[in-house]
Every structure is written in C-alpha cells, then in structure tokens.
C-alpha cells in the first residue's frame, strides 16, 4: 500500500538550471559510466595509454643510459621522431575507438526511440536543436576525451624527460588537438546519424558498423577499379587517421588535403542532416 505525502510544496526556481543540451549530455555520460562497456573500454584505453607512455620512457632511457648504447641504433628504427611518429600517437587506438563509438553511439538516439522518451523530451523545454547538439556533443566528446591523454601524456612525459629534444614535438598538441577534434566530430556525426535510423540500440550498432565498413569497402573498390585514390576520402576510418597526418605534415598522408576536407565535410554534413531529419518533433509519436 503506497504511502502518500500530505501535499506537494511548490517547485524551486526554474531559471537556475543548466542548458538542456548540457543536461542531456551529462545524463548520457552517467548512463555510459554505469554500464559495463564503459568500464571495459576505460580499462582497455588505459592499457594502451600506458604502452604509449612506456615507449617514451624507454626512449629516454636509451638516450641517457650509456650502457644501453648498442641498443640505440635499433631504437632509432622504432622510435622515429618525425611527423609520422607524432601522427601515430593517435593511430593505434583508431579501430578500437571506432568500435567503441559504434557500440556506444549506435544506441545513443536509438535507445530514446526504443523507450520513446524523445517526444517526452520535446514536451519539456527542449528543442530539436538542443537534442541534436547533446547527442552530437556526447558522441564527439567521447572519442575526443579518450584521445586526449594519448596526445597530452606522451607529450608531457617527453617534455619532462628530454625537454625540446624529446621524441614528441613541443608543438605536437597544437597540431594533434585540432586533428582529434575533426576526427571526433566525424565519428560522432556518423554514429548519431546511423543511430537515428535504428529502432533499437542493437540495430544502431549494426547501422554504425555497416555504414563505416560499407563506406570503406565501397571506397576501396572504386579506388581499385577506377584507379582514383581521391575516392579513399569516402572511407571514414581512413579520414579519421588522415587528419593527424595532415596537420603534423606527414610527407605522404593517406588522403590528400582537398579530398580529406571534402570527404569529411560530406560525412559530417550528411549524417548531421540525417539525424536532424530523423529527430524532428513531427517524427515523434505521442
């Protein structure tokens, strides 16, 4: 038998709250943290980060400890200090990151569709723009936050151990952070667009993986058949790997500047448009 309160006092001030997009984003982060998947990927990315940091420390030892002098020639082959090394700071996590984005981002909009909470959100002071901003923000911020220590921690260690002579350039973060931002928005928009087309979170994961792998396969096929390397810009995995290379100035990037800009703009524009169309209030069934 429920016990009812004598009455309900009036609500406090409704003008002191946070912007709806921020509330939605925070809720998605809390939800992710509660899930096992969040802890699993947190652990995996932590291990990858430790490996990166260990390589910097090893490099430091090789350069400072004369006993290890014979190993230096060998070390130089694996610890290059050129542009490719800087860009590579972000790359080993690439496929794993896409997988995480698919698993988490795939359910981002689809879960709201399944539970039918989006119409209820729109019945509150939430606009479709707030909703889209929150979902894109979350899906983009997630890979960005994961990549952030990969860019900053090796740089910090290199700076502390070897100063300007370290393997990581002093200016590396200035180049890597914008590249991470572009790649993260690319991943986020694709995940949100794909998720908006799915009716369940599981289907959303399928949509993201299907779109990413499908676009990659299609680009490879056209490249092979027509001999047009610029078509590789349709491949979102390649695009995400290319941006760090382009911004640190790798001599032969995976995709050239112009196709990379066009391909990225195409993907971000298309999937944001799809998500905006699929999350309009008129799509909401109440």
């Amino acid at each position: 038998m429920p016990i009812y309160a004598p009455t309900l006092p009036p609500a406090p001030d409704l003008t002191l709250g946070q912007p709806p997009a921020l509330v939605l984003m925070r809720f998605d982060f809390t939800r992710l943290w509660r899930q096992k998947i969040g802890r699993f990927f947190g652990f995996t990315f932590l291990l990858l980060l430790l490996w990166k940091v260990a390589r910097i420390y090893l490099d430091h030892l090789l350069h400072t400890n004369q006993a290890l002098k014979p190993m230096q020639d060998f070390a130089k082959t694996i610890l290059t200090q050129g542009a490719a090394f800087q860009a590579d700071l972000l790359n080993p996590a690439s496929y794993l990151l896409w997988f995480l984005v698919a698993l988490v981002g795939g359910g981002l909009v689809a879960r709201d569709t399944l539970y039918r909470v989006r119409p209820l959100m729109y019945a509150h002071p939430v606009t479709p723009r707030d909703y889209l901003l929150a979902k894109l923000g979350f899906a983009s911020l997630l890979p960005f936050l994961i990549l952030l220590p990969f860019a900053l921690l090796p740089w910090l260690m290199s700076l502390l151990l070897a100063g300007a002579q370290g393997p990581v350039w002093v200016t590396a973060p200035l180049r890597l952070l914008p590249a991470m931002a572009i790649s993260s928005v690319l991943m986020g928009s694709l995940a949100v667009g794909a998720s908006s087309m799915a009716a369940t979170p599981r289907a959303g994961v399928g949509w993201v993986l299907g779109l990413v792998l499908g676009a990659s396969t299609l680009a490879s096929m056209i490249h092979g058949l027509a001999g047009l390397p610029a078509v590789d810009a349709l491949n979102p995995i390649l695009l995400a790997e290319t941006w760090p290379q382009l911004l640190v100035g790798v001599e032969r990037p995976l995709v050239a500047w112009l196709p990379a800009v066009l391909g990225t703009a195409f993907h971000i524009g298309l999937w944001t448009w799809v998500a905006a169309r699929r999350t309009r209030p008129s799509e909401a069934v109440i």
Partner: protein
Amino acid sequence: MEDSLIAFEQLEVRYQAAAVPALKGLTLSLEHGIVGLLGPNGAGKSTLLKALLGLLTPSRGSGTVLGVALGGPESARLRARIGYMPEYDALIEDASAYEQVAFWGELSGLAPEAARDRAHEVLYFVGLDESRYRPVSGYSTGMRQRVKLAQALVHSPELIFLDEPTNGLDPDGRRRMLDLVLRVHAELGTGVILASHLLGDVERVADQLVILDQGEIKAAGSMAGLRKALARRVELRFLDPLDAGQEAGLVELGTVLEARNGLYDLELAETDPAGVFRWAQSRGATLVQVTPRHDRLDEVLLRALHPGRA
C-alpha cells in the same frame, strides 16, 4: 482569450503531404479546471496535444495556452509551465525512478541539486517513496504510471496533459490514480487536460468535456451543461391515455422509444423541452409529468459522434 487556460480560434493543423488537415478549424475556450478530452482513435487528440505543447505549428488559425501564443517563439519556455504524462511507457528503463524524475526536473529548468530534492518530494507525493531507487524495469504497471505522473509534476506546472493515465491499471489502481489527479487539481491548483477513452474516468474527475472526432469538435462545454444540452430523452406522463391520433402525433416531437401504461419515452428532435408543452396544448392532452432522462456519458459521446443515430 488571454484569461483562459487554453483558447484557440479556427485552429487548423496539417501534416506535410496530407490531403486532409488533422485538425479542422477548431474554435474553443477552456476554463481552469479538469478537462476531459474524449474521442475515438484518429480523432485528433494527440495532434491537438502536440499543437498545444508547441510541437506542431498551426497551418491556420491561432491559439493560446496559459496566455502564450501557439507556435510562437515562446513555445519552448511555455513547456516549462506544462507537464505531460504520455499514454505509452516513456520511461528510461535502465534508470531508477529517482534518477529519471530528477533528470526531467533538470530538463524543465531546475538546478541539479534542487532537481534531486524535488524528485524525492514528488515521488513521495505520488506514493513511490520506498521503491524510488530501483530501476523502473522492475516496476509494476501502477508504479510506472505513477513515475510518469511524477515526471509531469516535478516542476510544478500550471497545466498538465494526462494521456490515458489509467491505462492498464486494475480497479484499485485506477481509483488511486484518479484520486491523485483530483488532488493535483485541488491541492496544487494545476489545470488538467485528461485524454481518455475510459468514459468512467472522465466522468469521475472532469468538470469540462471536449468531444473530438475526425479533427472536429463535436461537443464541448461543462459536463453538466453538456449533458443537459445533449440529453434529449424525456419521459412524458399524461393525465388520460392518449388516443390513436394523439399517439401518432407524438412523432412531431421526436422519436417514440417506448410507450407503456400512459408513459411515453421519447427522444426529442429539439433539446428545448418547451415544445412538449406547446404540443400537448395544441393536441388537447393534459401533460402531468415531464422527466428528463439524463444520459450516461457513453450515450452522450455516441450521440455527439453519430448525431443521426437514434
């Protein structure tokens, strides 16, 4: 129009690429109170609620909710003054009642700390004090309905839309939910729009009624007034039995449903019973008793939806 709870004039809402508008030029003004919104599936109830929530822009006409123009730039801010309890299970299954009510409170504009405090208060108000920390996926139907009501009340709205609030509840659960609806209006002073197909629910709590069908308002007004206007059934008793000519002449008044022992059960063609007295005087019959046969609400609804049917 500004003083009304809800008012609209010639309100037309048309979905893209639809040949026929979903709402066809509705004109109505509703006072503060509990309003029952009745109508069959596809009548336009949900479209009307969407339009009132500002989610659909009227293609023609105008309207106000709590004095704010429909479809205007203030629509989003207006929704902070409105609560909405959907018909379906719009619950975040992996979150507890407490978490999600606090979340909805924050979305309505409460600060995080205030939203958490408020979630406790409102869940206590709807009778979910003990189980609020459990994920809602394990809740019974009655508990889920109460969570939905709690999220609609968390920000102290001036007006709430309740869409089928007693769906799936047993008689005891229905009674408790309707008691809560009455308390919401009586104690919190909140205006209530109750959309339901359960006529008994509407009859119990509503003081105004709107009957909607095929995008048109078939009848609207206070429950008592509406019943009176639509109650055309009367029972007539005459001093002396009517002769054959007088009995045949009864059709001038309407349809004779039953005749027995000098009692005639009629459905009048007009709602004004004064015509009965004029008829009796002109026919030389002595009328001793006219008893209005107040219809049940379902009869009122059926009559409004199918005016030609006796």
